[in-house]
């Protein structure tokens, strides 16, 4: 039951990431100028008849974020009271801390008129929070608790490769967030060429950020292909092969969405789905990475009951 609830929270977080990306893609970040109130109303009593234009996105994002925050409180309490693993209790607390900090960052960025460093930190912490919820869902799963039947190899090379890939993906997301919040998304207006050439013909700060994101996409693709190749070459167990295959598929989609974001001059939905897909690439890689580390996790005297719960 806890595992199902953790999966539900992670699913809601995907929706929250989509809502947040729509706020930026539609330029609605300041359509509600006050925080935590909304045009002077309590956030939860702000009349739906006033959710017009950009307010629909910004206020909707705040409400979804509040709901996810509430769900995270329940998740943290549930973990604290029922999970026997001490580190899992603290992981629940860290999820709660992250979602609170995330809310504060969201408020600060509104009050200070969307400064790029705060907005980028808000985007970066969103990914960390999403990673924590996915990790909790994974750690509470019966298969994880059973140790996948001891079938996962203790392969240090694969562990290092998967860990490096996840780190590279997160760095790439941070560069992407910087690009988004500094208005550099179309600093290089063509794709796959750059100003009609294979290398930018001129430079400024925004072009450099955009260029770094494109180079990052190349690095992520190479890292993901290397990890997936290593997984398929070294093991036949589905718990590693499935996320590896999914990761490759998501990277293909993600690169395509990135290209179409430029080609469509930042179409709102394509741009937003690019952000969501980036988060899914990160968490899929995280799941793969954590599974390669499963052998190194202490069991903490967890016993799985026939109904799937832990004691």
């Amino acid at each position, binding site marked *: 039951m806890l595992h199902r609830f953790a999966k539900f929270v992670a699913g809601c977080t995907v929706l929250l990431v989509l809502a947040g990306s729509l706020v930026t893609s539609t330029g609605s970040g300041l359509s509600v100028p006050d925080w935590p109130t909304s*045009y002077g109303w309590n956030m939860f009593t702000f009349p739906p008849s006033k959710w*017009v234009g950009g*307010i629909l996105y910004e206020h909707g994002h705040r409400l979804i974020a509040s709901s996810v925050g509430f769900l995270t409180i329940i998740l943290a309490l549930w973990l604290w009271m029922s999970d026997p693993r001490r580190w899992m209790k603290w992981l629940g607390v860290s999820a709660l801390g992250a979602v609170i900090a995330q809310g504060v960052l969201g408020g600060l960025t509104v009050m200070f*008129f969307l400064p790029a460093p705060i907005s980028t930190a808000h985007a970066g912490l969103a990914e960390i929070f999403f990673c924590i919820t996915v990790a909790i869902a994974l750690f509470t799963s019966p298969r994880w608790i059973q140790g996948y039947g001891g079938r996962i190899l203790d392969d240090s090379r694969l562990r290092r490769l998967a860990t490096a890939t996840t780190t590279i993906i997160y760095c790439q997301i941070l560069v992407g967030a910087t690009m988004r919040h500094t208005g550099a998304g179309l600093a290089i207006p063509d794709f796959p060429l750059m100003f009609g050439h294979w290398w930018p013909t001129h430079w400024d700060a925004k072009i450099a950020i955009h260029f770094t994101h494109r180079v990052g996409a190349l690095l992520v693709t190479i890292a993901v292909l290397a990890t997936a190749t290593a997984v398929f070459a070294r093991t036949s167990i589905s718990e590693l092969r499935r996320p590896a295959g999914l990761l490759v598929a998501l990277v293909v989609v993600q690169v395509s969405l990135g290209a179409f974001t430029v080609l469509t001059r930042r179409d709102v939905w394509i741009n937003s789905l690019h952000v969501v897909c980036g988060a899914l690439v990160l968490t899929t890689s995280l799941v793969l990475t954590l599974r390669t580390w499963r052998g190194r996790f202490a069991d903490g005297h967890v016993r799985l009951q026939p109904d799937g719960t832990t004691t």
Partner: protein
Amino acid sequence: MRARSVWMGILSVALAASVVACGGKKDDLDAPDAGGAGGAKVDAATAGDINGVVSFDGVAPKNEPIKMNADPVCMKENTTPQTQETYEVADGKLANVFVYVKDGLGSYAYDPPAGPVEINQMGCRYHPHVFGIRVGQELDIVNSDPTLHNIHALPKGNAEFNTGQPIQGMKTMHVFNTKEVMVPFKCDVHGWMNAFVGVMDNPYFAVTGADGKFSLKGLPPGTYTIEAWHEKAGTQTATVTLGAKETKDATFTFKAPAAATD
């Protein structure tokens, strides 16, 4: 005892210096930089005028269409197809051009502005779209629409502000403290709403109407750089030398961008 007195003296001086420094800083921040304060008044007996017209050469690019379906109130108030106000050209004359004295004025003292300037959110548009205001002059921001707006100013020299006006008839006052040409306004609720204000430390500015005409009245004799600013076409300058009681003409012609004339 003597050493103690010396230390007390040093502390007292430091404390006094801090109070003066802090107090001075606050005044600097709060006082509008009105410009020309303390200088001589313009002699009306020798003052002259600069009149002119702003033309547009070529076919003006089509203004972007606006989709107001994000807000039913805006849809209801605008039943005909709407476009942005970017290029308002009639008979080859360009409206919404801010014309002002960029350079050449000495240190004069000017009469305070007559009253507040108003920007009205009506029909999900800003009225006026381009206007001027004096440093320290009151700007009244009014919401005449039965829907909510936020007015978000994005200055570079003045303080940024973003004010919500959720109720029809709301009025908010704002004062700019520093000269700045131009300060953009936008509504983040209705992405098509934008306006521009020129904040001036002198009274010599005007905005062209549908006939493209402008007039800068009561200028003291001198040689001036006059600039014409348009939100999309950019800026043009002209140098005008004005003698005592003279009236001079200044004309500006903005050309259509290459893509629009093709």
